[in-house]
């Protein structure tokens, strides 16, 4: 490792470069009658890891491909460090990309794959070999340089793809669902590694994913897209705690949908009144959106709710409660106080003392679609 950092061409030169900001300015893209991007505006700071999150067809991949130069937007601009690169061809953009599908060149060894970008740039053979070695070490595959891609596992292939993308010291790193073809365990491991490397190099990174857990766990900020527009861009905490719209609220994290009545600017919910958080739909019958930790469940022999299941997961426990009207809600509480809440126990459920998000009674069409797809 000391030998690596001593070299001038090593990843150290990546580290010394400040991250470059990207700006998407009114990006529009239509495929026939389908609007993939509908005037997308987004400012990405230098060195930031931003995740673009949304259901399939929301335009997140189209946005990434527009940044990479694979897809020309019908309108709008892509600015890299203030420079308009909308018309710059993909091979002149100086960006590294990792694809969803395995993309290693099958006829080249792992080391030759990593060095491909340098070969295109006509770097000396010794420099290419040295650089490939360093980057393979960075992704933990230093001993696999002479293997061929088909001799590696999926996770290893994506690590090599990451090393290959970084080998040319790109200004921007683009990740197009790089983990979705991998096993759950490898996925978690690799996303942490991507974050480690990204922080180490300070490279501006756009990470497209449909997996909210992935987005929330690695990103500095998460942009939630819906029908080609940004619903909200915020830090993972803010997105979870203060979702700007009902769509974001339901897409990020677990959300209970509880029937409620909106009247006089207040929500009548589970026998209580709470102020409305965010924008309110027309008054009348609505659906309250409450996080599992936003509900309080107490053992109460006279209560109308019944515990259906109790799932212990270390410090916290989740109970599924069937309310009197057949609605089921999930409630999280500290395991220490959940002892009495065994299946069949009578309970009461009420919302915590805080403003409540409400949505129109019908589910959002995209959400219904996702539910059908089993996502």
């Amino acid at each position, binding site marked *: 490792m000391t030998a690596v950092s001593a070299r001038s061409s090593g990843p150290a030169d990546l580290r010394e470069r400040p991250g470059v900001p990207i700006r998407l300015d009114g990006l529009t893209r239509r495929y026939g009658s389908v609007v993939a991007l509908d005037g997308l505006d987004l400012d990405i700071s230098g060195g930031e890891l931003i995740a673009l999150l949304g259901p399939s067809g929301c335009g997140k991949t189209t946005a990434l491909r527009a940044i990479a130069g694979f897809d020309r937007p019908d309108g709008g601009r892509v600015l890299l460090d203030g420079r308009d690169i909308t018309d710059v061809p993909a*091979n002149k953009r100086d960006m590294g*990309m990792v694809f969803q599908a*395995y993309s290693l060149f099958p006829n080249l060894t792992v080391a030759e794959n990593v060095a491909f970008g340098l070969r*295109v740039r006509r770097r000396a053979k010794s420099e290419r070999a040295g650089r490939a070695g360093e980057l393979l070490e960075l992704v933990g595959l230093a001993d696999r340089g002479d293997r061929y891609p088909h001799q590696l596992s999926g996770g290893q292939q994506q690590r090599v793809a990451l090393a290959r993308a970084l080998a*040319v010291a790109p200004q921007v790193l683009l990740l197009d669902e790089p983990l979705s073809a991998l096993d759950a365990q490898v996925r978690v491991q690799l996303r942490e590694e991507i974050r480690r490397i990204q922080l180490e190099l300070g490279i501006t990174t756009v990470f497209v994913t449909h997996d909210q857990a992935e987005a929330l766990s690695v990103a500095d900020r998460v942009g939630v897209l819906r029908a080609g527009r940004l619903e909200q861009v915020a830090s993972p905490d803010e997105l979870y705690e203060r979702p700007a719209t009902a769509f974001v609220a339901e897409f990020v994290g677990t959300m209970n949908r509880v029937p409620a009545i909106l009247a006089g600017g207040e929500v009548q919910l589970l026998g209580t009144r709470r102020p409305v958080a965010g924008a309110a739909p027309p008054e009348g019958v609505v659906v309250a959106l409450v996080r599992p930790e936003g509900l309080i469940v107490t053992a109460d022999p006279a209560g109308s709710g019944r515990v259906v299941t109790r799932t212990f997961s270390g410090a916290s426990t989740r109970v599924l409660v069937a309310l009197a009207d057949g609605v089921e809600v999930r409630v999280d509480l500290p395991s220490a106080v959940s002892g009495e809440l065994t299946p069949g126990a009578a309970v009461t459920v009420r919302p915590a003392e805080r403003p409540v998000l409400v949505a129109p009674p019908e589910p959002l069409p995209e959400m219904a679609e996702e539910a059908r797809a089993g996502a």
Partner: protein
Amino acid sequence: MTLTEGLTSMGTAAPETPVRAGRRGAGAWRFVVLGVLGVYFLVPIGASVWYTIRDRRNGGVTLGTYAEIPGAAGFADAFTRSLVLAGLTVVLVLVLMVPTVVLVNLRLPRLRTTVELLTLMPLVLPPIALVVGVRSVLSWAPDYFLNTPLAEAFFALQEPALPWILVFVYVVLALPFVYRALDAGVRGADLRTLTEAARNLGASWPRVIVSVVLPVLRTSVLNAAFLTLALVLGEFTVAAILGFETFPTWIVRISGSEPRLSVAVSVLSLLITWMLLLLISALDRRRGTKENS
């Protein structure tokens, strides 16, 4: 069931899966099928070989006929001409079709059906129709364009030493085979992602074709080249009707006066074709072992 199984696996050049041991009797059937096919192919070849090596004067066998081939009048010219025509056809058809197939798959998927149908035309239209059309144009055009550079071009096309018109006709005749071989290769690989990865790493389009597309399509390019080569080396109708002397037309021409020589040359051309086939599969296998080492 076993019969069909045996037949299908024999029909393909390289069976992907070994023929299963199967139930009792399957082995026997396999030998029957192999035997029948073997007789069907080997008897005519064996008879030809025997005809060329039997020494009728002294008895026994002699390779005298084969020794005569290199010195036979017209052989060297006709054979070289056919090889050159084959080489030119291979280069031209690949230069034409590799970018076309790649472009159709990556950029213009809507054109796929059209291109597929177009490349099928030479199979649907009998070569005789094609060549009669070509012949009328060749006889009409020089008069019509008399004293223009175009007339010169039409004469150049029909230069007996190297008839370029044959190259163009052979390119058309090879289209169905070449398109199919290349298309199978493109569909087998995720060429879109690979080319995008290469573009992303800074490669220009020519670079993408040379460094990524051709290596990935190597097997199918070799297959296409081989099919084209075999087609040109064995093509008789077009060359004969247009009146050019190529290897096949030369064989037919001498068969009247020197029947044994013409059969010996045919046997030899069969061997040459086999050797090319072996060479191509060896090239392919070397790549395989390199990857598996």
